[in-house]
């Protein structure tokens, strides 16, 4: 009987506690599958994880070739995560009012530790606009917009517009001269919206007798600015759109986008 003791598995205290831990209900409820060391377990892990399941179960070799994808979609997503993180941090200091907006931005650079945070948000935003365009260019040049991926191309186009709108709304928030006049010029385009802008084609047709239904104080530009010029209302509306509305919309579409990549057969292969 003494021999059997020496033959028994050598379980140190560490190993025993590891075995105990992996047998607990908590551990098993979090990690539903064994280590992904077999093909079957790898698939199960991907399929049963809410984050991973958006991703294709398997990727063809060309899918990770930098020369083929440029990793522009992945970089766009990475930049989005960076911008979300730094953006939330900036919100702890920034107040979107005429009185504080500009000085808070200056304070983020001068008074707050790691003043680089705001610069990361700014440069990250510029970079994301670039990577999103390049991603679109890559998808176009590799013909990856063709069926069955045409639906995902359209989702991507909408997200491109949302990215540009995020860039546009964030532009106003520093509330300096550049911001105010850039948004003045940009939002003046909304005046020319067909039917809904008061200087747009067809707007004069929308009238009840002598009363114009579309005028400077109720047209598309007004809805954007919350006023007839770039002022307090515009700053607040752009802030809410920039921090809540547009990010929510683009996050939902990103989930759809990634999911469609998977359902349409993973990243497209070289032609």
């Amino acid at each position: 009987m003494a021999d059997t003791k020496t033959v028994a598995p050598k379980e140190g205290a560490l190993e025993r506690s590891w075995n105990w831990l992996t047998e607990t209900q908590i551990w098993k409820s979090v990690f539903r599958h064994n280590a992904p060391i077999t093909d079957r377990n790898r698939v199960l892990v991907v399929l049963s994880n809410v984050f991973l399941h958006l991703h294709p179960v398997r990727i063809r070799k060309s899918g990770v070739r930098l020369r083929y994808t440029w990793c522009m979609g992945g970089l766009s997503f990475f930049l989005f995560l960076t911008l979300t993180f730094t953006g939330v941090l900036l919100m702890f200091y920034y107040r979107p009012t005429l009185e504080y907006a500009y000085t808070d931005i200056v304070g983020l650079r001068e008074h707050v530790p790691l003043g680089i945070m705001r610069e990361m948000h700014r440069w990250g935003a510029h970079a994301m606009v670039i990577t999103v365009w390049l991603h679109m260019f890559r998808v176009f040049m590799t013909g990856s917009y063709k069926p069955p991926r045409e639906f995902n191309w359209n989702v991507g186009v909408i997200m491109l517009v949302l990215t540009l709108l995020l860039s546009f709304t964030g532009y106003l928030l520093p509330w300096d001269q550049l911001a105010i006049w850039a948004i003045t010029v940009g939002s003046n385009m909304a005046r020319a919206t067909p039917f809904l802008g008061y200087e747009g084609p067809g707007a004069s047709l929308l009238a009840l007798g002598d009363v114009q239904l579309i005028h400077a104080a109720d047209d598309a530009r007004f809805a954007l600015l919350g006023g007839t010029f770039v002022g307090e209302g515009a700053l607040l509306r752009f802030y809410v759109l920039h921090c809540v509305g547009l990010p929510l919309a683009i996050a939902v579409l990103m989930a759809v986008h990634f999911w469609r990549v998977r359902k349409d057969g993973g990243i497209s292969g070289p032609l």
Partner: protein
Amino acid sequence: MADEPNVPASGTPAPKPAAKPAPPSVPPGLAGKTTSAAAAPRRPAAKKKVEDDTSPLLSRRGWIGLAWGSFTAASAAGLAATGRFMFPNVLNEPPQQFRIGFPDEYAPGVDERWKDRFGVWIVRTPSDMVQEAAGFYALLVTCTHLGCTPNWLSAEDKFKCPCHGSGFRPTGINFEGPAPRPLERARIVLAEDGQILVDKAQKFQFELGQWADPESFLRV
């Protein structure tokens, strides 16, 4: 299993009655699921439901249609209300119409005192280019190119827009840069108390010949 028998005439029992005469080939176990004739006697509860369906008001299908209709209408109303929410009833913006004091408070030339508050330059001229008389006009400070606010450069005797370089004479006529047309003038009249009254709600455009309008220029 419940909605076939005794459906009122108003309800259109389109697909189900075709299946009502149970085909003989249906096994007994399935018969209860496809024909209510077999189910009804077995389950009194189901029969009660059937009686509810014969409510004189509306068929079940009618009720569901009404529910979906109401839901759609409520959603549309909610959407409209959300849209309307974005247009406040009161705006904290400077008034469009305002009094700017008496004519003898102004020296000849471009006056900038109301630029920030009301968005107009008051110009007193010995002889206007259109009206050919002495008096006042009110120029709106909005550049006709893309809507920035030009600066008055007295040394160079011109308005100069910092955004894209448009230049305007003191009359408001554009002469350099991308601006496609002259600055606009606002309605300017004498109020009953003798003060000058400016009304930005009414604008006069040179290229439409509106600067000849008597209310676009205050003769003094």
